[in-house]
């Protein structure tokens, strides 16, 4: 989900008619290739407009079939610039056969990577296939390479696009304008989403009289049917992207994934985060001591502190933050000037 959100954020900036500094850009056509299970639940037409191409591979394909499909898509898709998120060799290693022979400019979006992946898959060699490494707002193993350029974090919404606290609360189905809102974000692996769902129920049991607890996930499920005691169930919000409603939230509880962490930081929303094990990155490195927790009591205590009457609460003034996607688009344009 994180990769798809980041890719969509970049694509949104690419299809705009002008850059952040007002420079006009010609029309850019996007082809977005993903095997994310969430892809079919996102309205790309709303995000990007109608004339772009989303290629969504079935998420349950095995490695060999995924690799074969990616190669087919590469053959069938004309493109002037290739942007690869995170995996320099592709998710199944398929780009090792494709990239060295590809003539167009190639860019890798480069965030943290597991050193063992770098070692075992010879990633140091692979990053040299790319003309630029774009480092979206966090330290990364090849961030100091000569062809690496760091930007601010990439966000799926600009600051001015966020809903006001009052509008956000309506989206989160919270009637009160004053009751603290705890958003438990269901993201990551299916098992983790289920755990966060249960965590939301438990926080609702603990804090139900003092706060509105919402389980926020792209694919909402009926928690009552899943067996949670109905009177204590944290209500659910089928919402993507969560960032648009974050100004209505007093504290976010989630994993240490890229988007969850950076969205909380740029909007100065308190974050209580679990560092989940990942094959390719290290959530524990992304999180600060102030953000990371490892047990329910710690979650409970941090949430209690965040919703305490003495905490600063919601603010009327919108957050100010730089969205790194615009700097990224400037860099892409310099690599491959679009036809005027």
């Amino acid at each position, binding site marked *: 989900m994180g*990769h*798809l959100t980041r890719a969509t954020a970049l694509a949104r900036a690419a299809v705009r008619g002008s850059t952040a500094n007002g420079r006009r850009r010609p029309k850019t056509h996007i082809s977005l290739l*993903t*095997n*994310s299970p969430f892809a079919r639940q996102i309205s790309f037409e709303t995000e990007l407009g109608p004339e772009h191409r989303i290629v969504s591979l079935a*998420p349950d*394909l*095995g*490695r060999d079939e*995924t690799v074969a499909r990616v190669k087919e898509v590469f053959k069938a898709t004309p493109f002037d610039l290739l942007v690869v998120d995170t*995996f320099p*060799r*592709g*998710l*199944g*290693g398929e780009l090792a056969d494709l990239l060295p022979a590809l003539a167009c400019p190639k860019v890798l979006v480069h965030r943290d990577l597991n050193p*063992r*992946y770098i070692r*075992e*898959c010879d990633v140091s060699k692979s990053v040299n296939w790319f003309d630029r490494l774009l480092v979206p707002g966090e330290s990364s193993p090849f961030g100091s390479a000569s062809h690496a350029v760091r930007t601010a974090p990439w966000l799926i919404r600009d600051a001015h696009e966020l809903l006001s606290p009052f509008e956000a609360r309506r989206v989160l189905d919270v009637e009160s304008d004053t009751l603290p809102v705890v958003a438990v974000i269901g993201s990551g*692996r299916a*098992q983790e989403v289920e*755990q966060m769902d*249960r*965590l939301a129920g*438990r926080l609702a*049991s*603990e804090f139900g009289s003092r706060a509105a607890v919402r389980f926020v996930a792209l694919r909402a499920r009926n928690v*009552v*049917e*899943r*067996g*949670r*005691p*109905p009177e*204590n169930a944290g209500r659910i919000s089928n919402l993507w992207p969560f960032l648009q409603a974050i100004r209505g939230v007093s504290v976010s509880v989630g994993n240490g994934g890229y988007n969850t962490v950076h969205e909380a930081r740029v909007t100065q929303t308190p974050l209580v985060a*679990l*560092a*989940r*094990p*990942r*094959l*390719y990155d290290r959530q524990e490195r992304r999180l600060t001591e102030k953000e990371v927790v*490892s*047990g*329910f*009591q710690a979650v409970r205590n941090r949430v209690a502190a965040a919703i305490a009457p003495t905490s600063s609460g919601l603010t009327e003034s919108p957050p100010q933050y730089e969205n790194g996607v615009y700097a990224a688009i400037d860099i892409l344009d310099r690599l491959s000037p679009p036809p005027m």
Partner: protein
Amino acid sequence: MAKYWEMGICNEKSGFLFNHACKRLPVGGNCNSCEKPVCDDHSYDIDGVVLCTRCAMESPSQPGQGQTRYFSSARWGHGAYFYGSHYYGPDYYGGYHGSSHNDRHDFTEADAASLINEADEGFESDMSES
């Protein structure tokens, strides 16, 4: 495929958020369905048949979604609850009332480590990592 159990300790895995290996001693007996060695906390007498937590959850006697059924447990006396496919032991009530005691079904530092093996399936072979 045959399932091999570690003898002498409870082989059950359960938990509120993450599954914990129980490994408690002594073992109270074996599940009548899967033969898993289980401690008293993780064995349930359902219609006269002793089952482990998982088999009890999958038992045909398991009630429908949203219903509550009480299972007798030698140690707990009043038994654990199963809500649908989820398992709520008596410790769950500590959470309801804001107790700060350390709930053995809570996730702990050890839980994250317990998931690492699940994540570590080999580079460029796990297509779900996108």
